[in-house]
């Protein structure tokens, strides 16, 4: 700690503050790195705008039950393939009627059907504001509930992944030796598999019968399956850069000082080292959320994530791809939602990184 007025060489902020006070100027207050980062972030209007967009998406998705009770009156899995809507007194089938009729003399008449109604924009009194899918389900409802599922999986898996990565990185870098070797090889092992392929393999295997080992019982179709799979496959993508940072920190003076004061390993890791990598953790977390959402979408699209009939943005794109020519909105709407969410998270993540450490080059590398 600096002392005041004892030496010309030891001129500090405190000294400057006292001198300023003596000269009648305003007192200079020291700013913590977090406060400085907050100030930098507040000045980054683009990042804040995209944070606002992300929050808006989250809020809209959280309001899905209200949309069901007040607007669509159809739950996320409620089918209405044989139903009708009324528009200006007209009865319109939700799926167009199709038939093939074989007449005498070999005549055949085909009436192509099965095409769902498009967006009604409120004309039907609420239901099918964004149209119906091939089973007469409300696209608006599914978009919001699908968003809930995608965001829930993305955020939860990113949180789990980050926590596990921090623990592993601290253990590996602080203890070194065999512990470091084992954890590093574990990172290498997962890193060796492409994320999506490992995700498909695990997701497919677990989606058949779920996970039942010891006290852990996760039924097939549970959202916890894609959540845990995604959390697992991203561990080295956070763990490795954090391990590198901890390695650089563990021989610094403040760690030696703490050791000299008799602090134990756990205290050094979590009270000394962790706060020093917190800014990187925060940035990596925001970036991994975006990646986790994208991975969930990919897995669900391929049938290894959220299981039907429950919606996610990925399953909605998969459902819509077969009718892309006639009902493009079925794939486009979840596609747009994904783009908005991921772009907003990435732009905000970049802003956060610039704010926390403008010189840092933290990024998720695949």
């Amino acid at each position, binding site marked *: 700690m600096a002392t005041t007025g004892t030496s010309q060489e030891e001129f500090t902020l405190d000294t400057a503050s006292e001198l300023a006070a003596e000269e009648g100027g305003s007192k200079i207050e020291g700013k913590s790195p977090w406060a400085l980062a907050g100030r930098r972030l507040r000045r980054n209007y683009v990042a804040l705008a995209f944070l606002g967009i992300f929050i808006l998406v989250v809020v809209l998705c959280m309001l899905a039950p209200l949309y069901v009770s007040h607007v669509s009156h159809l739950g996320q899995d409620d089918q209405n393939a044989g139903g009708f809507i009324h528009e200006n007194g007209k009865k319109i089938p939700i799926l167009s009627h*199709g038939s093939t009729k074989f007449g005498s003399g070999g005549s055949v008449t085909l009436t192509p059907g099965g095409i769902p109604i498009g967006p009604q924009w409120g004309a039907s009194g609420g239901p099918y504001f964004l149209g119906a899918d091939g089973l007469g389900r409300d696209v608006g409802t599914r978009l919001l509930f699908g968003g809930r599922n995608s965001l829930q999986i993305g955020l939860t898996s990113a949180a789990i992944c980050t926590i596990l990565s921090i623990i592993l990185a601290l253990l590996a870098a602080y203890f070194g030796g065999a512990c470091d070797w084992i954890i590093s090889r574990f990172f290498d092992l997962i890193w060796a598999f492409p994320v999506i392929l490992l995700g498909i393999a695990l997701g497919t295997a677990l989606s058949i019968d779920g996970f039942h080992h010891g006290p852990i019982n996760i039924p097939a179709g549970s959202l916890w399956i894609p959540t845990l799979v995604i959390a697992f496959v991203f561990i080295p993508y956070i763990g490795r850069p954090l391990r590198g940072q901890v390695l650089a920190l563990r021989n610094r003076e403040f760690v030696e000082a703490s050791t000299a004061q008799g602090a134990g390993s756990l205290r050094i890791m979590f009270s000394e080292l962790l706060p020093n990598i917190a800014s990187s953790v925060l940035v990596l977390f925001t970036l991994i959320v975006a990646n986790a959402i994208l991975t969930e979408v990919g897995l669900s699209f391929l049938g290894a994530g959220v299981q039907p009939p429950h919606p996610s943005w990925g399953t909605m794109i998969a459902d819509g791809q*077969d009718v892309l020519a*006639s009902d493009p909105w079925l794939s486009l709407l979840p596609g747009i939602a994904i783009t908005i969410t991921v772009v907003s998270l990435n732009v905000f993540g970049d802003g956060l990184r610039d704010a926390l450490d403008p010189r840092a080059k933290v990024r998720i590398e695949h």
Partner: protein
Amino acid sequence: MRTKRVRSVAVAAVVAAGLALVVSACGSGGGSNETTTSATQGKTFPQLKVVWGTTDYMDPGLSYRLESWQIFQDVYLGLVAKRYGTCGVGAGCTKIIPALAQSLPKSNKDGTDLKFTLRKGLKYSNGEAVKASDFKNSIIRDFKLNSPGIGFFSNISGSAACEANPGKCSDISGIIVDDKAGTIQIKLDQPQADFLYILTTFFAALVPSSTPDKDTENPPPAAAGPYYISQYKPSRSFTVLRNPHYKPIPGIPTGNPDKIVAIMTNDLAQSAQYIQSGQYDYDENLLPTDRLKQLQQKYGNQIKLWRTPSTYYWFMNQRTPPFDNLKARQAVNYAINRQTLVNLRGGLGVPTENFLPPTYPQYKKITPPAYPYNLQKAKQLVQQSGTAGMTVGVYTISDDAVDKAQGEYLAGQLDKIGWKTKLHELAGANYFVIIGNQKTKAQIGFTDWFEDYPYPTDWFDVLENGKNIHATHNNNNSNVNFKDTNKEIDRLSHLPSSEAFTAKTTADWAALDKKLMVQYASEAPFLNGVITSFFASRMDPNCDVFTDLFDDMAQTCLK
């Protein structure tokens, strides 16, 4: 057979005995709207370019898919064949013609001793002479390959050893051949009404005795028909050429294109696009349902629609709750809106409550409808069955958009009537193997059936007879096993030949259909499939000849 599936080895083992040969009935097919092959003859052209769905094998001993069989009909011939003409609704394609045999067989009174004589001067595409022993060796080869068709031949005397140990099959005493005289004698353990129909399947097609006893694909085995497959790249392409050694056989079209070149894809939109752009001449795949309207408006004259001898239905496993309860099965039948299920197929289907398709003479439409769509009644039945709230596993195919949608529709309906469903969407390649395994205990799910041959035993004996329930590769997915209907199926299968197609027998099959579907609600049938044929503008769709299951490529012609 089923769409894109390999059928059980065991199923046909029991295609029951009893009837004498239906040779007399073989001539009874054909209605007023049958197309003769002569209309398309003599319009040869150099090359036909086609787009084809992928298939399992290109070896007649192994393949059990429509995609291969459609090619095989102009390539591989057996002793007899189904007639090469468009079938009339109701009459079915029941007529059988001699192919490599000079005539239909001579037989004893009960039809257990059949004698064929080969036509003279027949040669395979590789120049080898067709010999009587090739028939026997082809059947033995089927056993050695563990072909899905070996169950069809279990009634041939002396086949038991081969059936018990297919890989070591070396002789079947019930097939006696004389290469010099060109005669083939087949002895059956007991009379079997549909045996001649079985001989029309490609498992009984002749291939040279020199053909290796393993999957032979590149090139596939030499053929005795008007064409042969010169090249095959699985899932990518194949080429079919004229058989240079083929001598015309009456009733079998010599074919118009000199060469058929195919690319293979399962992408329906891409497939249709190839035809629209004129790059290819014929689309074997179904038209994409979401583009039907657009394609029909623009290319209506180039699209033909055909009713297939097929039924799509929900199986209900009667060995496990809740479907061991009649009321639960009836509830499912009331809960499904058959018209909605047709809508989900884009309109390519005809709603049905029958098990037999209308292409059969034994078909009699169930009127008035036994199970009209009535969700309220379905709910009541679930309550009455005491199974409300039970968890029900619904199985369907994940990689076919329509099958997937239909499965999800069923799950939604079952949720509405009081059960809690758990959806199991499985890849099509494994789907029927998984649901056909009793260990899976699949409760309810999607299935379909396309005829192997046009006689009701292919439906009721294989799919509805309790004697044909197997631990694995089970086609009786509902495990239907009612004493009285089992007995009736056996009785009808054991009638003398003179009664095989009488009005009474026909009515009895129809009554059996009604009893199983209405009284026992053993299945929940919902539609008969309709398929599309899409031709490029240079082709003349009027030449299209649709045999009972597929278009005949050999008879296509240019405008």
